[in-house]
């Protein structure tokens, strides 16, 4: 049953990676505007001549 501590170690390690990703995204500014991206997603762009990029 002591194997559980190894398992705990691995899962906490994974969880910390995700926490790190969260911290990175907040510092990067992804949480600065929670409102507009949700609206932006709903726009449909009709087929127009696309800008070459």
């Amino acid at each position: 049953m002591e194997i559980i501590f190894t398992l705990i170690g691995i899962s906490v390690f994974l969880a910390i990676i995700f926490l790190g990703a969260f911290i990175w995204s907040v510092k990067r500014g992804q949480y600065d505007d929670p409102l507009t991206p949700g609206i932006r997603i709903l726009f449909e762009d009709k087929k127009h001549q696309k800008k070459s990029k």
Partner: protein
Amino acid sequence: MKATAYIKSQDLCHHCGDQLADEAVEKNGHHFCCKGCSTVFDILNRNDLCEYYELDPKAGINPGELHKEKFAYLDDERVQQKLLSFKKQHKAIITFQIPQMHCMSCIWLLERLYRFEKAIESSRVNFNRKELQVNYDPSKLALSHLVYLLSSLGYEPHLSLASEKSGKAKPLERRLWLQIGIAGFAFGNIMLFSVPEYFDSLGQLPENFKNSFGFISLLLSLPVLFFSDLDYFKSALAGLRKGAFNLDFPLSLGMISLFIYSSYSVFFEGGMGYFDSFAGLVFFLLLGKAFQNKTINQFSFDRDYRSFFPLFAIKLKNGNQETIPIENLKVGDRILVQHQGLIPSDGYLLKGNGVIDYSFVTGESIPETKQLGEVIYAGGRQVSNNIEIELKKTVSNSYLTSLWNNEKFQKPKEKLNRLNDNAGRFFTLGVVLVALIGVLMWLPDISASIRVFASVLIIACPCALALSAPFAFGNGIRILSRSGFYLKNTSVLEALSRLDHLVFDKTGTLTDNHKFDINYSGRRLNDLEVSQVRSICSHSSHPMSKSIFQSLVGQDLLVNEFRETPGKGIEGIQKGDKYRIGNWDWVGQQEMEQGVFVQKNGTVIGKFMIEGHVREEMSRTLDELSLNYDMSICSGDNKASWKKWLEIMPSGSNIKFDQDPQDKAKEIQKLQKAGNRVCMIGDGLNDGLALKTADVGLAFTEKKDTLTPASDGVLSGASFYDLDKILKFSRGCSNIVRISFAISILYNCIGLYFALIGILSPVIAAILMPLSSITIVAFTTGSTGLYSRILGLKNLISN
């Protein structure tokens, strides 16, 4: 998910939705209220962007009058340095403040600017902050053209001294996100380890597991202790320094006890501790804080006087024009103020026709004429042609600025959170008392005494109590903003519930600045004369002429030799009759008298009295309010219409005229010293000082383009008549908070029962805390929503 296309009736502008008047234009089968709107439609049509109208029925904004030269100063190197956040030869980034954006269509259009100009790479909207960030090629597109493009679509950016601070989200907001994330992470993971304890299966596991899980929980709690909960400790200490126990004190006490006792349990008793409750407590409290801070506002409440001033002025030197920042203007400088330009500082009129509109500053809707050599004060807007002024004060020393910064009228900052502070004091006392009782109960047994003492502190931690105000008031603010009433933060809602005296500004607030009541007194005019007067007035664009024109019914007659002398009056000849319509001295009256006089062939035959139209339903609204509040009016106007106001205002109201900005603020201070809690409702800069002095200052605005003076809240045209309901609602929210305090204390008592008996196990703590929190959240949000529906508050969700 497309909204169905909105069908406009024939009487409304296809673009902005305003009623069609005389300047209506027809194009492509659509009707527009003015050339500006039809131009916007043209631009959109040409670029195949008419989807703009489909996304939101109220999308279009009237662009108003545009002058290209207005933006010429933006191409100056120094100006750009101040405004652009990034500039290289082929790439520049600038962030604009665009208060006019109000719907999905706005976002849609503003993010498709690249369709208008190839040189625009991309643009991105931050709707909460009303900002637009544009990425463009400065070598191919001048900044002035970019701003002109935005203005011609109806989205003129607001460029001012204060706007230099826009851009990044404050690091404070990010910090809260991080605190919540870490607390949530710890909470979730610790709970996993506590599961065996909840289900009593620890007995089935090897001995040391319990303690090991305890250690892991301790480790996970460390970042919560040293980062997430810091703000509560800071606040508790700050309160102590002032000699008061606010609600954060028992909270901090609870948190620290939880951590210390749990650590003690893990190290010395082989136990697991209460770390799940600890992390959970911090997590829920932080969520409450985030909910309270959520900004749903379209308005910026922190405007100071500098927001109303332009960034740059045109200085004249040796016949040359030079654009310089207005802070650099010195006494003696000669500046050029263009049509519709703002006067940045006090000065003497040297050249040109000075006709200054001070409506925003003094509340007077009629522009003042200034003679050469007269002093013109800062804050006015020049409505005639270009003029030149020699400055006698710098911008920061002008009369307006000194008024704004007057030390005597600063609002004391400590008016917040009364309910919470009172609860905190009461609670701390109660907790310490009960803890001592517990110790005494178990005294011979030392270890039991300590355990009971700690348990009491832990379970008395007022988590639910601390959530009551944030959720009740936070939801309250959300509900009110759906009714068109916007508050700065939750403390204002609490302050609103304690008011007992309302002070109204007259001009622009109780009366409409754009509608006038006209009364004629004098010799009765025959039909021909009526038509003559009307026809002459039709040639003038002065608001008074327009009002007279609209109020008379007659034929359109040909007028010869029409002339308008700004600030004085108009004249013209019709069929041999010479008319002069205007001021008392324009028509040769000996004494100064209010009104617009009509002179025919040298004799004055009558006059028009033109006054701001009292808003509809004003009497009813004021009567309702007077049932619960004392009322006053403070006005900058003179006593001419005093009698009329006596009738309109409920009996017993206090009416004061001839008030300048300082008089208004002094009046409010007088009321406050007499023990009243005063709310000021006004609309212009002239009320700014009073708004700051009052316990609650509400700015009234009709437009979405929000240049409101610094205030605690904004009343829109829609919500003004519901003021009675709104104030009732605020009182209701305070009562809901009090009831919710009672409920959470009930939970605390149940917990205390377990603590005093000595059987407060981690399981019980872990159950009680989330249970009480969820009950409070559900109760507060539910009852505030219910109460708003009972009162019948409007719901005008636009976005």
